[in-house]
């Protein structure tokens, strides 16, 4: 049998699947969007998301195109350690579980992660944090738009620009109509499809692959993929874990969900989400390891997982892979669009408008959200069109920056003494050193160096120049808030948490 000779599905089948799922997501977005009448509803789903939806949205958002496409790439590049390194990203969800409970408690009326940094560290901390947040959000969006285009091309031969454009437009449309309600609602369905699909694909692949043969062939032809002392892979292990910590701790995608969940739900939902996510990259990574042994020619390494599954399982398998990855892409792109739009509206546009006009209404914020979602979609589309670099190259460039945010976030969330200068210096110096490591050594150490340098600077400056921050300031309300939310903020302020 001749593998890797071209797309497994016909373009016609690909276009049909694309049309079907596009209609489904946009339809569901409009259906759920009926409830998003207020800005609170649109941005944080009324702050009333329960455990089932909360867990599903955590799993669906974290099973991104990166999980299904980068985990096999990691395994293909860095062997067994690579697959394991990717799986450590679940630790980020476990670590964020207790944090989400505290975030919800400290900021019952909050919207964004940048809002926390602004109240905790002032302008000094906000400027680098806002820059990093936006940079990361854009690179993640672009990497996923690229993944959509590459996937459709490799599976069905649909030209990259067309596939990529459809994926972006569909996600923009349903996020635009339904906001966070649509995002979390579709995430629920998408997480079910993804998990069932992955179990079926994994089971079917395992029945067709002899693990001993895979091991034997790898040991003979590509020995480093099985080596215990694979230097680059050893360096990548904690790098990936710290990258995931940085991604989750700083990103508004996760903070907006913490605000959207009912009090007490966040810790359970994130911990459960981490548990459900943990086996996914291991299964996906196995596909990457199996490719060389099965004689499947790999041209674009970031498409190895879908290509192996689709080649082994034929047209039916390709359809399943298509559906699983389209769901995982959509569930992450919509989350990013919604969360980044919240960030732009609440932390940039609304403060500027308030300074100019004195008051900002919910209706105005709702309108700005729509405009920013469209603008973000257009930006991601225009940056993904050149199809430059692999997904890992695009995403891991943001690694050192997000890695340097870990300490300011956890330090500021739990302790009174960290100061704005400690937060700012650690983010700036951590990012710079991490980027130097990115170019001097490689992507597989950049987040690690960023997090380590940032930690040393943050600890040192907190020890040398401590402050006495009062957490009640985090619950303060903007002017014009209604009476009930003001009372809950007053209760929190008086509790002295």
């Amino acid at each position, binding site marked *: 049998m*001749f*593998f*890797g*000779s*071209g797309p497994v599905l016909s373009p016609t089948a690909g276009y049909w699947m694309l049309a079907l799922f596009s209609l489904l997501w946009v339809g569901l977005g409009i259906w759920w969007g009926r409830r998003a009448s207020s800005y609170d509803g649109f941005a944080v789903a009324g702050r009333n998301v329960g455990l089932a939806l909360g867990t599903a949205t955590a799993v669906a958002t974290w099973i991104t195109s990166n999980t299904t496409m980068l985990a096999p790439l990691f395994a*293909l*590049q*860095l*062997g067994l350690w690579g697959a394991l390194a990717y799986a450590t990203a679940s630790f980020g969800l476990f*670590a964020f579980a*207790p944090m989400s409970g*505290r975030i919800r408690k400290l900021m019952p009326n909050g919207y964004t992660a940048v809002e926390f940094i602004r109240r905790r560290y002032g302008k000094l901390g906000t400027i680098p944090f806002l820059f990093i947040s936006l940079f990361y959000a854009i690179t993640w969006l672009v990497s996923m738009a690229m993944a959509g*285009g590459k996937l459709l*091309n490799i599976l069905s031969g649909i*030209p*990259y*620009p067309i596939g990529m454009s459809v994926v972006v437009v569909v996600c923009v449309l349903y996020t635009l109509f339904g906001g966070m309600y649509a995002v979390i609602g579709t995430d629920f369905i998408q997480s079910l499809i993804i998990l069932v699909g992955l179990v079926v694909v994994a089971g079917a692949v395992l029945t067709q692959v002899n693990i001993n043969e895979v091991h034997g062939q*790898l040991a003979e*032809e*590509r*020995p*480093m*993929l099985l*080596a215990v*002392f*694979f*230097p*680059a892979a*050893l*360096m990548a*292990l*904690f*790098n990936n*874990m*710290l990258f995931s*910590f940085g991604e989750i701790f700083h990103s508004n995608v996760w903070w907006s969900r913490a605000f959207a969940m009912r009090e007490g739900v966040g810790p359970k939902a994130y911990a459960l989400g981490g548990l459900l996510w943990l086996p996914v990259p291991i299964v996906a990574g196995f596909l990457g390891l199996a490719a*060389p042994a099965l*004689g499947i*020619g*790999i*041209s*674009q*390494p970031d498409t*190895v997982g879908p290509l192996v599954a689709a080649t082994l399982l034929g047209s039916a398998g390709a359809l399943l892979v298509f559906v699983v990855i389209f769901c995982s892409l959509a569930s992450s792109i919509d989350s990013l669009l919604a969360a980044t739009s919240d960030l732009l509206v609440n932390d940039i546009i609304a403060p500027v408008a308030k300074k100019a006009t004195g008051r900002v209404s919910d209706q105005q914020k709702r309108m700005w959200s729509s405009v920013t979602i469209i603008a973000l979609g257009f930006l991601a589309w225009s940056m993904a069109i050149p*199809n430059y670099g692999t997904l890992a190259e695009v995403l891991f460039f943001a690694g050192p920056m997000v890695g340097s945010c*870990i300490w300011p976030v*956890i*330090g500021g*969330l*739990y*302790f009174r003494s960290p100061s704005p200068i400690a937060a700012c210096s650690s983010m700036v110096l951590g990012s710079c050193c991490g980027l130097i490591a990115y170019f001097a050594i*490689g992507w*597989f150490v950049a987040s*690690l160096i960023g*997090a*380590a340098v940032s*930690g040393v600077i943050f600890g040192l400056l907190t020890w040398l120049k401590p402050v006495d921050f009062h957490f009640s300031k985090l619950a303060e309300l903007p002017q014009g808030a209604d009476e009930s939310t003001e009372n809950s903020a007053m209760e929190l302020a008086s*509790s*002295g*948490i």
Partner: protein
Amino acid sequence: MRFNQLLLLSSLLFIQALSVAAQGTPEEVESDQQVTESLDTAELDTAESQLTVTQLTFKQTTFDPAREGYVSLEWNKFPGGVSYEVVDSQLRSQYRGAFPSAFISGLSDGQHSFLVTAFDATGNPIATSEQPAELTVSHWPKNQAFILFGIGFVVFLAIILVLIIGSLKSSNRLSTAISNDTELA
């Protein structure tokens, strides 16, 4: 750019299919061969020069030392070539597929060289690269890897420790605040 490449690939495949169809029956092919034998020297020279123009070659034949043990090889599309195979110096197949590029990973320290062969629609080899792509793999020093692994482990432990201490402290503060409220009530 990708769209253009696909269009080009599709066109090449289409041209190849047409040329296969145009070859006709074996008898016709034999007859064609007889006609070819009667070609004069000038025509043969022209054909040879055309072959020279359409050699199968790697876009890059030498690389910086690979520290991670993987490399991406690229070569030109060969007219009539519908699939390609890359083999290493021990003639083990490292890639077989339709696209003119290959990602090869898991290589151990040392010199590695690769050759690419183009195959036509019937699976016959029609061209092989004359100059191999040569790569030296020299993995990162193990000392450096272990130091960075250790730093990562320490940072990870520190984060977990800070989270545990922070959670315990904040829950203590919350309990104190609740007991104060109860006393006031």
